[in-house]
């Protein structure tokens, strides 16, 4: 076990992958000479050279599509789309090619592609640079979507994505890069599709993923002060989604709040709520609640952005309100 940042954990996994498999290469905007927009790939160009760490032009749809083609051609590409905001330009290749080629070809083709991107708000980057659209990706059959929230998962889920024969999209919340945690550098791939109970409790289930996990922990700690023990479920993977783990927790706590940085309407939190409706309805003492982002393009000013994003205070208030209704 070694203490490291989320950024270092991703970099370590990339390095191990590049060392361990000659078919692996990294490409994306500024992954090489610049060292990565978030310094994740810093140093990899020097170690592996420009053939395997490739700076691309600003052509998102094409370099993602080229990753698909390279995967068809026997490589194991890791494409870095700098942020989810720019991935909108690549959605055609993702939805119409990466996700369809295997099924549409009657099983002849495989697309072992890994696409990494930073996601989320909280850095005062305003309306065009603060999206949390991983919920959209989770809607697409044919791809898998993972959302590591800890340094250990940043490593384990990226290695899992690389070991997967199908396209896997890894969403790294930009606010997590400096966060620290224990990582077992000898550990291999994590299991895609398994949620983790990060905190055990009996009063309420807090379901979340990615960049919202720290806020949920804060909320759980504050609730604990009032003797309210919340169980925290970190989804880790949005597609496939580990419904059994969610339902098992709800069966125990009889209450759930879903915390998701996406805009409320059509958020992934809605899917989780619907699954609890369908599989846990009779276990519920009251309606499942959602704490999501306000339905506004993200404002730049700090106080406005804070008001737009899910915060620990809102989670605490939601739980307290829910328990008040209990009596």
């Amino acid at each position, binding site marked *: 076990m070694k203490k490291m940042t989320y950024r270092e954990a991703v970099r370590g996994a990339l390095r191990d992958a590049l060392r361990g498999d000659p078919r692996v290469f990294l490409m994306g905007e500024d992954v090489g000479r610049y060292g990565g927009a978030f310094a994740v790939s810093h140093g990899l160009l020097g170690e592996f050279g420009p053939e395997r760490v490739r700076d691309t032009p600003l052509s998102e749809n094409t370099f993602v599509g080229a990753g698909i083609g390279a995967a068809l051609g026997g490589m194991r590409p890791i494409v870095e789309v700098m942020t989810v905001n720019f991935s909108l330009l690549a959605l055609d290749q993702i939805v119409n090619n990466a996700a369809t080629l295997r099924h549409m070809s009657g099983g002849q*083709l495989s697309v072992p592609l890994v696409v990494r991107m930073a996601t989320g708000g909280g850095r005062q980057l305003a309306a065009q640079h603060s999206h949390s659209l991983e919920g959209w990706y989770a809607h697409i059959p044919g791809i898998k979507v993972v959302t590591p929230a800890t340094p250990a998962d940043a490593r384990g889920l990226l290695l899992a994505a690389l070991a997967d024969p199908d396209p896997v999209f890894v969403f790294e919340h930009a606010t997590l890069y400096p966060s620290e945690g224990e990582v077992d550098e000898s550990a291999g791939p994590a299991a895609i599709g398994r949620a983790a109970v990060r905190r055990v409790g009996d009063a309420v289930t807090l379901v979340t993923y990615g960049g919202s996990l720290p806020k949920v922990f804060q909320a759980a700690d504050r609730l604990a002060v009032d003797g309210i023990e919340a169980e925290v479920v970190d989804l880790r993977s949005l597609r496939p989604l580990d419904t059994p783990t969610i339902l098992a927790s709800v069966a125990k706590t009889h209450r759930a709040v879903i915390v998701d940085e996406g805009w409320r309407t059509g958020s992934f939190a809605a899917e989780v709520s619907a699954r609890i409706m369908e599989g846990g309805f009779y276990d519920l003492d009251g309606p499942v609640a959602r704490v999501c982002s306000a339905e506004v393009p993200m404002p730049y000013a700090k106080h406005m952005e804070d008001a737009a994003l899910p915060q620990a205070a809102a989670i605490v208030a939601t739980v307290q309100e829910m328990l008040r209704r209990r009596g």
Partner: protein
Amino acid sequence: MTAPIDRDHALALLRQMVLIRRFEEKAGELYTRGKIRGFLHLYIGEEAVAVGAMQAFTADDAIVATYREHGQALARGIPAGALMAEMYGKANGCSRGRGGSMHFFDVSRRFYGGHAIVGGGLPVAVGLALADTLQARRRVTACFFGDGAVAEGEFHESLNLAALWRLPVLFLCENNLYAMGTALARHQSQTDVRLKAQAYAMPADVADGMDVLAVEAAVRGAAEQVRGGAGPFLLELRTYRYRAHSTADPELYRGKDEVEQWKARDPIALFTARLREWGFVADPDLAALETSVAADVDAAVAVAEAGPWEPVEDLTKDVYTQVAS
């Protein structure tokens, strides 16, 4: 005038073009009979492009095509029966009946589709070529697309990336003068497609897409250059679509006269005339050819008719790879 090629090769070219045309005429007929559904984009009139071009590629080379790919698929050697079965939606189709007319695939022949999003095949072709380069394989990836695709951002991005990284992609623009009902001059400010390559410092050329030998010569030359490591190449092939864009097209945007003018340069008729000149064929040969092609087409239909339907239980099969557990 003496023949520039030998008789066997000449007859092979003719036969492939005739096969494509008769196969598609049959497909059109089967569509009206409801045996084939969805969209059907016929290639009739453009046969010389696929047939001439495909001569230049080896089994190791890769082909990426569009939704109008029956000609490329047949010229690449995918059995006509597997293609007809695919259009029937049968499990013995080249894509198990999941793709239909727009999505032919045959990985054993490195035929990577069958792409129905205009421009969507170009980045994939660039990636296939990148994989070859990274694995030090001397292969060419041939990427067919229409004039309409030239307007898409992916055309620009893909040509730039391929040229920047000197990737072995042969971009083959099938310029049939229309993107659905929109004439070239109504979707391109610069209608000389070949000139677009200058923006990427990429070599380019143009050939008469109604002349199968001109196409073969141009594509062979370009393919050798690409195979030799000179980087990508853009080749424009000027051709014309005789039939409607798709079965849904009322063809309000062009006159019959225009179509007739192009039919005067029909690639099969032109080539047949030359074969006669060279004394390679006479009426009996042509009759025999038609008979054998007709037999192939009938056999293809039989394969499709006899094919099984994929069981509904397999609906979710191959959405993801079955990992043996």
